[in-house]
């Protein structure tokens, strides 16, 4: 596939890695939004997934491990005319960046967040991630994962996230469609993407996901929060994909924050007269 968003940055992923179809889905989705490159910012943390923005010809902020969301939020606050998309790993967003995940869902900035959920730390070579299945043995947890898994969709629904979806790397069209909806959603939109890591996760493979995943039926009522929560906990027997939950009535952070808006911060002036007025408030004069 070649398109307007291609870059010539060399691909550093393993052959067969689930990040490749996710990249294609991202490019497809961005193309479909019709937005020009200069208005899009891809933000990521650190990990294999977090390298994705380098392969898309848009504005890129590839920050620290776990810290994509704070940067993304601030970019939106500084310039709400930019379309901000976070695309990063499960370790990055749910593990190292867990606190930002929780609090930014509470804030509800207009950001689409794509989590490449391979249930493993790929870049650091195979340690369990917050979403690893209990009992799975990765490096560092040699007798198997003891902690219960972090349920990202359940957490997001519990916190009132207005767009909660699950995609699957293997189905580019389907996932790209979710991405388009997530970008269009006004507010924090989460798309957790089942992503095979062919090198370090020999359990949750293309085949495994293929067998477990099922598309939500057309009559699924995404407005039903309780039902969505129930679905978000399904994992052992089968895994729902599609838009689990959606509500459009919640205003986004940028709308509620009194200072955010036009003009963007880089274009705001500091008139000397306004500074003088401010200083005058500290000037003590007798009435």
């Amino acid at each position, binding site marked *: 596939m070649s398109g307007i968003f291609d870059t010539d940055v060399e691909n550093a992923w393993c052959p067969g890695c689930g990040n490749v179809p996710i990249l294609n889905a991202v490019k497809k989705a961005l193309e479909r939004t019709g937005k020009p490159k*200069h208005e899009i910012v891809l933000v990521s943390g*650190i990990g294999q997934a977090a390298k994705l923005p380098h392969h898309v010809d848009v504005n890129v902020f590839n920050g620290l491990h776990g810290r994509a969301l704070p*940067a993304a939020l601030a970019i939106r606050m500084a*310039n709400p005319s*930019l379309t901000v998309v976070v695309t990063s790993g499960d370790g990055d967003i749910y593990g190292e960046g867990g606190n930002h995940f929780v609090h930014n869902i509470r804030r509800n900035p207009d950001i689409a967040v794509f989590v490449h959920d391979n249930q493993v730390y790929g870049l650091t070579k195979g340690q369990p991630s917050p979403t690893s299945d209990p009992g799975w043995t990765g490096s560092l947890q040699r007798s198997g994962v003891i902690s219960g898994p972090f349920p990202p969709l359940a957490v997001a629904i519990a916190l009132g996230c207005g767009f909660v979806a699950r995609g699957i790397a293997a189905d580019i069209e389907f996932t790209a469609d979710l991405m388009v909806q997530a970008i269009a959603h006004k507010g924090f939109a989460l798309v957790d993407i089942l992503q095979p890591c062919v090198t370090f996760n020999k359990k949750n493979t293309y085949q495994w996901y293929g067998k477990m995943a099922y598309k939500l039926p057309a009559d699924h009522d995404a407005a039903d929060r309780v039902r969505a929560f129930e679905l978000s906990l399904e994992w052992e027997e089968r895994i729902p994909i599609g838009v689990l939950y959606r509500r459009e009535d919640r205003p986004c952070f940028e709308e509620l924050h009194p200072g955010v808006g036009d003009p963007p911060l880089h274009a705001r002036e500091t008139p000397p007269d306004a*500074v003088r007025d401010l200083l005058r408030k500290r000037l003590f004069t007798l009435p």
Partner: protein
Amino acid sequence: MGIDVNIRIMGGAGQGVHTAGGLLCRLAVAGGHHFHATQDYMSRIRGGRNSYSVRIREIPVRAGRPQADIVLSLDPGHLPHILSSVSPAGIVVCDLPAGEAGSADSRVIAAPLKEFSASAGSPILANIVGAGIVARALGIPPETVDRVLTLEFKGDFLEKNRVAARLGAEWAQGRVPDSFRLPERAFRARMILAGNEALVLGAIAGGCKFAVGYPMTPGSGILLGLSADGPPLGLVFEQAEDEIAALNMAIGASYAGARAMVATSGGGFALMVEALSLAGMLEAPVVVALGMRPGPATGMPTRTGQEELAFVLSAGHGEFPRLVLSPGSVEEAYALAHHAMEMSEAYQVPCILLTDQYLADTVVDADPGDFPALPVNRRIVHGNDVPRDAKGRYLRHAFAGDGVSPMAVPGEPGITVVVDSDEHTEDGHLTEDHAVRIAMVEKRIRKGEALEMETLPPLLSGPPDGEVLLIGFGSTKGVIAEAREILSAGGVSAAAVHLRQVAPFPARAVSEILDRYRTAFTVENNRTGQLARLIRAETGREVSGTISRFDGLPFTPEELARGVKERR
């Protein structure tokens, strides 16, 4: 030497210590005098022992005094703790039931503060009754008190305050000595502000448009100020979920073209350290205001210290240039906060404003001329001024001569801005090419060398050579200056050097100064002499020693002068 009256209001949290202290500051300025006010408070919301000290002189005052001449004690239970710090000819005004401990002391004047407060129509005006008594002792006319109260209160409550102050003043007639009366002087309009407020104003005047933080004393005061005073000038403020988020957010905003800052204390800064290194790597301009307090760990939350000097100089993994400024007065807090905003953007480096609880909470009157509306020089480039590769793509980290690459921001047609915390090529994409690595390291270091050319020189006062040199950074400036005067008056020829910039370090200037004095002491609110070590590292010269104070309180001039005499 003229008048020098030190007043201390004491009471529990919630008893109006701060209000009465602030009122006395304004009364001093209304009478044409100058003051220096400091607070000492405990880390609690109610009760405890807090104090607000106001030292009044005919010349601008830049240091406090431990001994009080007039004490207004709002809690009689504090009396046993107070008397040792009252000067021999001083007075203590206190609502004292007859026969209480301390009443035998001839300096104690029992005053019916609560009773008059009730007569004024409110149970919470004992502090204002007391302020009325103190104003009377200072010889401030009741009309002046009335006028100043008009600035602080409104409506019915204003009236009650006026009555309370007047009841106090009338009662004091003939009951307080005349020895503290201030001479009459002409009023001049002055700025009245604390170190934290000045820093906030400087940052806003410097074009700060994005501020974020997580509360931690004494950084919280800066956040409060930014959130209150910033929005009218277009600043956007947000409370972060933690300090890690705070600095990453500021860097995100900076990437989008906003002048951005955070404020915190040592513990919060510790959490920001990785992001500081990110700013170094992304070449993102950002300002960190760090109000120091004693550590380690939570330490003494509401007290002062200078223990983070070594920390801020080396904080952040990897090698990258930084600017560290250390204001020594409210005037410098204003000027250097503005300077930080300008320099941080000019060299695309993180800048740390190193202050402490003492400077943060110190209130003085200052010359309005020291608070100019300085220009804001934005350096964002557009269109044809943007460096590009052969394919026309923007090179965010283009290899420019002095290492400073022209900075564009996302949102402009024809430009995409790519930054990465990994080592990167000129276009911002990650690389593991060793030759590029070397070139990028050199580019970042070159920026530091350019930054060094603009180092603010140390400020020397006193004789150009001689016996003793006192060296300090940050908030000790005023205390050292007065200690120097005391020493000189006592026949010890002493000079003082104040460092308002510690990184890049003004090594040559400090070396040259050091060579001219027989002995040199650093003056530091820490135990281990961090500035002395820094001077050794940067100049290869050993100072004679360090005069340190690390109990959580600021130095005072007499104590410092005594320390110098003992060590000389």
